[in-house]
């Protein structure tokens, strides 16, 4: 077996392993390197075999006779309908007249330049979005439609800089899932600091529980962030946001910027 054959053998083994298990960091790097040398292979080569085998096992399993419960089916359709409705309520637009304007030669170059800039920007944004915030509006909608114990609390600014910030927290104890939405939050420099979410569960924990860190890259639009509690939450009494070192801290000593308590705080006089 020559060097190339050996490399291909390792590549196939890594591809097979990656279809069923998370690879170690070293193996991931090795796989990426080998894929560059052997472009005839793709990362999904064995994912397809695994997917087919999964169906094969399902068909061979005599106990696999469950029917999708009708209430779940209805919830899926409801989520689909509500998202379609949102799409359909977008303001109307006369595409024909726009098209007629755009095909004029005078506009062609400027449109090409704008599209190129736009595409480059969206590729950068999309990369981050894909990794961190994929499908968040839909995931939030699924939670809203399925959680029977959904809590919904607005944010209150704790300092003058944060008084105008809009948004709220939704949280389901049963599902141990939640999302925060914020508009107008100051943009942070993620190399210096990150915002951190805290969940206050005083009966179970002495200190607030870490709910994950996030960055703000726009103050103009509404931002959706998933809450990722590091411990199981028993009775969430409030949520809070602080600004911490990158990666966050276990116990915060920073001032609270926003809070979302169960009860509305008394107004300052």
């Amino acid at each position, binding site marked *: 077996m020559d060097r190339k054959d050996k490399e291909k053998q390792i590549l196939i083994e890594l591809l097979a392993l990656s279809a*069923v298990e998370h690879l170690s960091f070293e193996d991931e790097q090795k796989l990426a390197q080998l894929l560059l040398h052997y472009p005839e292979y793709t990362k999904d080569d064995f994912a397809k075999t*695994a*997917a087919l085998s999964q169906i094969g*096992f*399902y068909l061979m399993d005599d106990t696999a006779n469950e029917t999708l*419960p009708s209430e779940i089916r209805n919830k899926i359709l409801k989520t689909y309908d509500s998202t379609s409705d949102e799409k359909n309520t977008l303001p109307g637009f006369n595409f024909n007249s726009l098209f007629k304007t755009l095909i004029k030669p005078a506009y062609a170059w400027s449109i090409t330049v704008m599209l190129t800039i736009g595409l480059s920007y969206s590729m950068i944004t999309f990369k981050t979005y894909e990794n961190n915030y994929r499908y968040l509006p839909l995931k939030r909608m699924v*939670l809203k439609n*399925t959680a029977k114990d959904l809590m919904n609390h607005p944010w209150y600014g704790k300092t003058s800089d944060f008084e105008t910030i809009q948004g709220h927290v939704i949280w389901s104890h049963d599902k141990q899932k939640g999302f925060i939405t914020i508009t107008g939050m100051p943009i942070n420099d993620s190399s210096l600091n990150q915002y951190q979410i805290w969940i206050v569960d005083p009966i179970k924990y002495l200190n607030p529980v870490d709910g994950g860190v996030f960055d703000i890259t726009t103050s103009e639009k509404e931002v959706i962030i998933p809450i990722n509690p590091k411990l199981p939450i028993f009775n969430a009494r409030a949520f809070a946001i602080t600004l911490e070192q990158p990666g966050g801290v276990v116990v915060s000593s920073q001032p609270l910027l926003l809070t979302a308590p169960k009860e509305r705080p008394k107004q300052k006089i």
Partner: protein
Amino acid sequence: MPLLELIINNLSIKDTAESGMANTNPKANENLLAKVASGNPEAFEELINKYGNLIWSIARRYLSNQNEAEDAVQEIFVALWQSAGRFDPNKASEITFISMITRRRLIDNLRKNNKHKVLKSIEDSLSDDVFSQKSNLEENAEISLVIRALKKLDIQDQELLSLSIYQGYSHLEIAKLLNLPLGTVKTKIRRNLMKIREDIKRINTKVKHLYHG
């Protein structure tokens, strides 16, 4: 002769030969995902009717409780609807595409929840529809090939692969469950997956050769 038997039992195998490992029953699958991608609500409903039981059954095997499975199935359908436009029948059949997305989402959920349970009792309602849907799926030539390849493995290898691929157990969990060294589990799963892939590829090549000379 197994190959001949396979061809006789599976009239749609010619489609497999013509399109590599692609869609084997184009008429049945025609445009469903394309219609879903274009925002057709009836097509989305048809997608749920066609694959809901399969996805639900697999989700119940991967995830520890009904609530988690419920969320996961909803997320899978949202993902299917969002990704339907990426479906290319020349690269994979409809069911393979759906199963790949299902697997990815379930593995993500499993990692997030970090817990597992083997489903011993089926509390869900059973219906005759499931049996007819299952036999419809079996008509897919690609799936016939994979079932044939799976059945060729010995029982222990089938069990290992089933725990990993069908029930979503990690290699470490399987090693503990079956009291086997972790290295053995990894090697066996990897080799069997490679064996199945080779088996499918080999038959596809033979069938292609048979039809195209």
